[in-house]
């Protein structure tokens, strides 16, 4: 009986959400249309123009290669950042001496903006994949490092002692206690890193590559093809939303079901009788 009540409430909740989102999209489109009618199309192209440009892009010869190139660079930089950032995060967690010694370097890394990394990358790697990968790496790595490091600090010695009391080996303790403790922190860092990594990859591509989405954005802007610039932007936003909603959020939900989240008021509290 309680289950049907909860289900109905859940369905209504989802329905309201979908309606809200649709309304928001409609509102934004209307605003866009109104704005575009008032200025020349090369300053603000209207939704129909952008839609046409998007379709044209989709069917163009180089679309797939450009998108693939950018995705490949972002992924490479991200994977490298994950490996190096996690390793260094664990190192700093393990040695207080090293942590204290290298902390200023970390602050420095976090302060240097990706635009500066892009300039260095061009000088060192020229027009190549390495330029973009480097910029993504330098942006993502400190984020992952910091989060993993923080994660090591949160490992509960009680749980480690528990594992020791069951005579578990060092490797087992690492796998069964450290990894689950650090994982949420790593995930938070990785999510941030991925988002930032995407953004900076475009910046790097506009000055440091001969292919990819950033390169095309730049070319379109230079050739006064503003509707194409918008089309690429819409595409990127769509891609990001897809990744977030289709991959990252469900993964997060699955991995961290165990966290005691604030329950919605529709569910009555469970009786706490022992």
């Amino acid at each position, binding site marked *: 009986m309680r289950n049907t009540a909860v289900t109905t409430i859940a369905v209504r909740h989802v329905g309201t959400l979908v309606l809200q989102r649709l309304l928001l999209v409609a509102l934004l489109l209307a605003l866009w249309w109104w704005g575009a009618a008032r200025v020349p199309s090369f*300053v603000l192209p209207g939704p129909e123009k952008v839609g046409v440009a998007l379709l*044209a892009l989709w069917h163009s010869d180089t679309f797939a290669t450009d998108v693939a190139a950018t995705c490949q660079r972002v992924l490479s930089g991200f994977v490298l950042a994950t490996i*190096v950032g996690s390793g260094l995060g664990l190192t700093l967690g393990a040695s207080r001496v090293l942590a204290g010694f290298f902390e200023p370097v970390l602050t420095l890394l976090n302060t240097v903006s990706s635009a500066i990394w892009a300039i260095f990358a061009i000088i060192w790697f020229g027009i190549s994949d390495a330029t973009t990968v480097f910029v993504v790496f330098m942006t993502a790595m400190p984020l992952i490092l910091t989060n993993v490091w923080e994660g090591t600090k949160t490992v509960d010695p009680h749980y480690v002692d528990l594992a020791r009391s069951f005579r578990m080996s060092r490797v087992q303790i690492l796998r069964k206690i450290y990894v689950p403790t650090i994982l949420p922190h790593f995930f938070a860092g990785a999510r941030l890193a991925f988002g930032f990594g995407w953004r900076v990859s475009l910046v790097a591509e506009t000055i440091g590559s001969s292919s990819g989405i950033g390169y095309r954005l730049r070319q379109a802007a230079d050739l006064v093809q503003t509707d194409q610039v918008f089309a690429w932007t819409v595409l990127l936003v769509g891609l990001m939303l897809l990744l977030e909603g289709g991959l990252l959020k469900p993964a997060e939900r699955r991995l961290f079901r165990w966290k005691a989240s604030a329950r919605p008021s529709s569910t009555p509290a469970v009786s706490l009788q022992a």
Partner: protein
Amino acid sequence: MRKLLSAAAAAFYAYSTFIALSYAAITPAMASAAEPAPTVKIGYWTSGVSLGYGSVLEAKDFLAKRGVRAEFVHFPDVNAPLRALASGSIDLAFGAPVAGVFGTAASGVPIRIFAATQPADVQFVVPKDSPIQSIRELKGKKVGMSPAGSSVAVIAGAVLAGNYQIKGSDFALVGGNESRLAQFLVQKQVDAAALRSVTVEQLGDELPVRKLGTFANEWKTLTQSDAVPYIGVGAARSDLVDNHPEVVARVIAALRDTLAWGNANRDEVVQILQKKANLPADDAKVYVSHWNDMNRVAFEPADIATLRRQHAVFVESGLVKGELKDDLFARKPYEQAKALK
């Protein structure tokens, strides 16, 4: 507890160092793999003026027909080909910005000019409803153009100073690319702008402007001659020009072929542009209609004199320092190319 972390960290560390080192090892290795001598690395900016010409050069096999094996590198911004020439990542750029070439050569980088390729097809424009009626009235106004240091900016400065006594300090230079300049005009953030003719025609009714004058005419007035200033030249590494002038000659011949073919097959050029740069049909057609105004392959004494004059102007405006060395202009390949039919 710390011992455990150390163990894990050590493992990760070793692994990550390995990954990082192998990546670092691979990248330069791929870049510096031994290349067979006859291949010429040609680079160009896949936008602006070079886009159309470069696309055709790449798409058609004029270079191959002349026996030149070419490798093309695309750059996302206008000055990148020049930097690549200086660092040796490319051997030849057919549309290198002339101001940059002078500056780079003056600082000792071994490059030579082998042809004048991109005339300045630029106009001074004002919004249609502007009270400004002539270039003279630009004194004290905001004028948008390519950023300071670019060929356009220096030429504009030269003609304004030379023909109208409007010095650099007498007007405000607002820098930007074509997109930005058009936007500034529409939003009345500048009083006038120096725009490429292609841009003005491409935007058409969306950018209502009135032409005050052209770079070509102003330069003719300034120099009391029929010369037209250049914004782009063909430049190559000195060792290529000096040691293999016949290769450069063949490249020049191929450039000539491209120019002729593009002129005769405008529709096909439009198609190529649509495919290579996602340009919509209308814009591509506008672009191609300016083919002969934007592209050239010339190195006659008159052209060299124009370039010398430009250099003098650049030195005067403080953009370039130093003497113009005579060997900057490599005439031999061009003469050799004349023999190739």
